[in-house]
């Protein structure tokens, strides 16, 4: 159930949401939920729908970018925009424009290689760049460090924080855990993914697939005495859309 400023609303009363779009799918799911979901304004709700839609688009775009998979020890980045840290993360180069540096990953994916968690962070930055445009993006994120869930900008901190929700939506960050992974291949200990539509997930290095495929792939990299299958964890990381919306209002 969606409540705007205390009033329950139906999805049909929200204008400008195209049928069959990611926004429309999210809106329907929110409205049919038994949970009471409070928004301060229509604009706030539309903003979340828009960011979720752009997150899905960015995930699909990153999948096509050609960015390689590499463990952190072997990660690489375009040195024109990024400095590689000792941990294997990428820190925005002094003087580089944040918006151009993020865009470069999508345009010159082959110059980059990283693990799945960092790819998720890149997806969210790209989505916000699409929503805000370069000027606001550069103002809001003058410094960026891309390194899984650690060193995140405070505005994006919640995408690294896994919580249980009553239901999951396109644009959520989910995690497939592989408890019995072979210790010689810890990069298969799990797969961070973006939920594209509740059925398909984008995982960096693995591509766009359904849950069964991802679980099978993880299970193919288990220790010989494995007795536990990989599984999709019952939790998600979500950006704090309300905080991000406030930033939009102050543009």
């Amino acid at each position, binding site marked *: 159930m969606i409540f705007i400023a205390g009033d329950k609303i139906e999805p049909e009363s929200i204008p400008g949401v195209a049928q069959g779009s990611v926004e429309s799918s999210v809106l329907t799911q929110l409205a049919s939920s038994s949970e009471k979901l409070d928004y301060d304004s229509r604009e706030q709700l539309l903003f979340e729908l828009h960011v979720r839609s752009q997150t899905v688009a960015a995930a699909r775009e990153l999948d096509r970018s050609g960015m390689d998979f590499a463990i*952190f020890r072997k990660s690489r980045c375009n040195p024109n925009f990024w400095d590689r840290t000792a941990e294997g993360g990428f820190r925005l180069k002094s003087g580089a424009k944040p918006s151009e540096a993020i865009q470069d990953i999508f345009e010159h994916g082959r110059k980059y290689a990283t693990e799945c968690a960092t790819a998720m962070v890149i997806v969210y930055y790209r989505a916000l760049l699409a929503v805000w445009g370069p000027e606001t993006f550069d103002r809001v994120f003058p410094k960026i460090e891309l390194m899984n869930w*650690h060193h995140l900008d405070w505005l994006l901190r919640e995408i*690294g924080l896994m919580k249980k929700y009553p239901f999951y939506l396109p644009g959520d960050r989910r995690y497939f*855990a592989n408890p019995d992974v072979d210790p*010689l291949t810890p990069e298969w*200990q799990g797969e961070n993914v973006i939920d594209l539509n509740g059925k398909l997930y984008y995982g960096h290095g693995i591509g766009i697939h359904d849950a069964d495929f991802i679980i099978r792939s993880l299970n*193919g990299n288990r*220790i010989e005495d494995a007795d536990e299958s990989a599984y999709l964890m019952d939790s998600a990381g979500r950006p704090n859309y309300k905080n991000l919306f406030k930033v939009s209002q102050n543009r």
Partner: protein
Amino acid sequence: MYTDPRLTAGTLEQIRRVRGTGACQRRFQEIIRQQKEGAAKLLNGGGLRFATLFALKPQIEEAGLEPKLSGKMQAALQICNKVLEEKKSLPGGGIPYSDENVRNAFQWIFQTGARDDGLSNEYDEILDLCAGVLTRRYREKNILSGLTELIFRRNRKKGYLHDLIWAFFQIHDPGSLRYIAPYLRSSNTRDRELAHLLLHLPEGGDVRKREEQYRNFMSWLQENSAYLYYTGESLQSSNQPEICSLDREAKYLGKQISPRKRTPVDPLTQEEEESLSCFAQAEENEKAVLSDYSGKLHARNPELWNQWIHSPVSEQIRVAKGGTGRRLV
């Protein structure tokens, strides 16, 4: 002919540490030239640390010395090659884990190699993966102290440590958290931050509060270790993972659980099943009070506990509220 009896593996160690890897390699090359057999004996002679074997690996391979090396040394080289393969073959491929030499080699690599952490990216990768094999496959608890030291040392250097941390928790023994706990009271901020993160605790405050936090954690661990389980969360999935969590039902019953599976070590009796049904009826905040009270009473007075747990749940709550001095809100 190479005949100098004063030369030992320790000599190569000494050269590497004092004069560097290059000098060690040059000296070893000289020895190989003088007498191949002696070079192999030197490596097998004991006192060699993994860092030296790693530095001499290209020369050992070039000179074809592997067959003359001890089983442990051969296994160590095999492990290095496996780890450094660009695309690793399927799990277990190529390494005979049940071979005692292989097990000894994993131990030897980690125990003698950890002190030279930072030698190169490849070297560190081998250390990290050996730690994972030792904890997950061999359940070697004797490396936990050294592994903890390595994690915190690398943390201070701001190096990559997520695989080491992952390896630490693969031992699936809540008791191992005691190795991390002392860092809660470290004078180094980075140590404390990491300890708080791994133990899922809030910042400790000033020195006095940090000491208090450490003591509280250790007594909490002692009280609850039989009821802790691994949640599946990790630094790879979350920036604030709760890696170990308390199973309130297990504590309520005083029933040890498997930390990895979160299942009772011994099957539940009919009576325990009934007690759990009662427990399930309680509100969430009441469950916390019940399990805490149960745990304390069980340790203090098993006979009284036995009477208490068989009373109606409303009575249990009433007694527990009085017994713990805590108020339900």
